[in-house]
Structures are given as C-alpha cells and as structure tokens.
C-alpha cells in the first residue's frame, strides 16, 4: 500500500475514527436485562445456552437494569407488569435499547381482542428499537433481532446527534425571532 503500511506493520496499530471504534465496542458488548415474562423467555434462555450461544456476540445477561444496555421484553406484558417494565426501563442507563420479543409484546398477540389484562404492545409504555415477530420466535430470530440492533448502533453518531440538536435549536431561535418581527 505504501508508507503507512510499512510504518505500522510491526506495532499492531489500527487507525480508525473514534466514533467507529466506540460503536464497534458498544455493539459487541450488548449486555441485556434478563426479563422473562412468558414462554418467549424459554426461547431467550435457549438462545443464551450453549447451542445458540449469545456469548459469541458478546451478549451476556445481567440481573440489574443499571448494568444493562438492552432490555429484551420476552413475553406477555400484562397491565400489572407494564408499570414495572416502565420503571425498569427508566432505571437503565443511557444509551439504552429495547427489543420487543414475540407477538404478545409486539401487539398483544393472541390477547389482542379479548385479553382484558394484556397491554396491546409494549411500545405503548416504552420506546422499542427492534421488533422480533414469532410466537415464540426461534432463537435464530432473536439473534437476527440482535444483528439488526447492531446495525442501528453501527449507524449511530455522537457528533451528528449533537449537530442535529444544535440545528434544531438554531431553527427554533430563528422561528421565534421571525414571530417577534
């Protein structure tokens, strides 16, 4: 390639933008909040067990929301549980993500019409990043969900977000000035 190639050949140095390095690190250490609500939790456990092995993606279960990056809502969200889910989500530190696993937490599933006790989709309470369909989804489907989440994280940018916020604030100020005139 040239001079750079030779220069860094022996000392194991990689040059990459900070943002990419951060995102790479984040997406490969997704710690999830163990959150089994119903039969989907069995599939989630199977995904974490040796055959499908979440750990090869750096995905490991945490028992505290404060240590978790992502919450898998695995199962039927009852009205009684919904407020607990909301609290757990609020206890997670940012950046935080939510994977809604299975039909029940996506939209109410088999309870959507006559289930008086079921919340019709966990997205009525907390924001969801990835929806995994299925009843329950197979471990491959949940893994696919995590790969989608990794895609989302790869595309994220700390600086861009700041810029966007700044632009929004600027636009607001300009608008308010116009109104005053």
């Amino acid at each position: 390639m040239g001079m750079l190639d030779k220069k860094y050949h022996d000392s194991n140095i990689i040059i990459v933008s900070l943002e990419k390095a951060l995102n790479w690190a984040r997406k490969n250490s997704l710690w999830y909040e163990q959150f089994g609500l119903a039969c989907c939790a069995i599939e989630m456990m199977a995904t974490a067990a040796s055959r499908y092995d979440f750990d090869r993606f750096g995905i490991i279960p945490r028992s505290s929301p404060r240590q978790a990056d992502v919450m898998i809502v695995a199962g039927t969200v009852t009205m009684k549980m919904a407020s607990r889910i909301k609290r757990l989500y609020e206890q997670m530190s940012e950046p935080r993500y939510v994977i809604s696993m299975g039909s029940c937490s996506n939209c109410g599933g088999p309870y959507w019409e006559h289930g008086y006790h079921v919340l019709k989709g966990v997205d009525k309470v907390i924001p969801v990043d990835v929806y995994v369909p299925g009843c329950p989804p197979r471990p491959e489907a949940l893994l696919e969900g995590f790969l989608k989440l990794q895609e989302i994280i790869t595309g994220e940018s700390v600086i861009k977000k700041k810029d966007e916020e700044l632009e929004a604030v600027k636009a607001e100020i300009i608008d308010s000035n116009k109104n005053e005139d």
Partner: protein
Amino acid sequence: MKTPEEIFNYLTNQFGEEDLSFESRDIGQPWITVLASKIREVSKFLRDDSELLFDTLMCLSGIHYPKEEELGVAYHLHSTKLTHNIALKVRVPESKPNVPSVESIWKTANWHEREAWDMVGVVFDDHPNHKRILLPDDWEGHPLRKDYVQQEFYQGMPTGE
C-alpha cells in the same frame, strides 16, 4: 365409600331437608345445593364425620348466572381415606353476594376464595385475607362476570388497541 345419593341422605338425617337439595343431570357429576348461611356448618360436618371424612377441597370456583342475576360458588370435595367425591353448590343474589368462608375448614379455600372474589366478585365473610389475588388491587370490576365492561385506562395505560 358412599355414592352422592347416600351422602345426601346422610346429610339430610343430620341437617333436615330444608337447607339442602340434591340435583343431577344426564351428563356430569350430581351435586348438593346448600343454603349459603349453612355452608360452613355442612362443610365442617363433611370433613369431620367418620363416615364422610372429606379431607380435601379439590376446587372452589365462582360462577355468574346473568339471567337469574345470581352468583354461585361450587365446591368439589374428595376424601382420600374413603375415596368418594361430592360437589356442593351455593347461590347468592348479585346484590348481596355474601358467602361464609370455608378457609377455617380447608386451607385450600384461602386462595381459591380470593380468586372467586377477584374474577366473579363473590364476597367471603370472615376470610382472613380478603383481597384480589391475580389482578392489581386498584383494578375496577370482576372480569369473568358476563356483563363485565373493561376499563379504558389502567394507570394511564390504554387497555385496548
């Protein structure tokens, strides 16, 4: 071991025929309808009498009869020593759905009665812990009643679509 008819006759010898009646259909198990105010007395006798010995309350269910505007409770009893079974039923008006608790006789009744209260709204007098068992404490209504109308919001969360 006694058949349901024999158990009924044995009970009427003890309590008289006014408060008890025997009913059966072509399909299913026959049952004895008991006056609500007598249920605890009858239950205690069923458990303790040496020829009955109903030591197990297998199930206790709440029932809603919308046409008659009544609520009911069904007790399914079993004797592990004498291996016979009997079903008891109690009916009370919706306006005053009070049934004496049999928790002091069979401990199984504790949670079952709470469930019957939670789902159908039967009130069990003298129950030691008379509150909902499945639904949250601030839920409105009893969902297994035939005329149940679901609340639109629960703690600000929509219960429907």
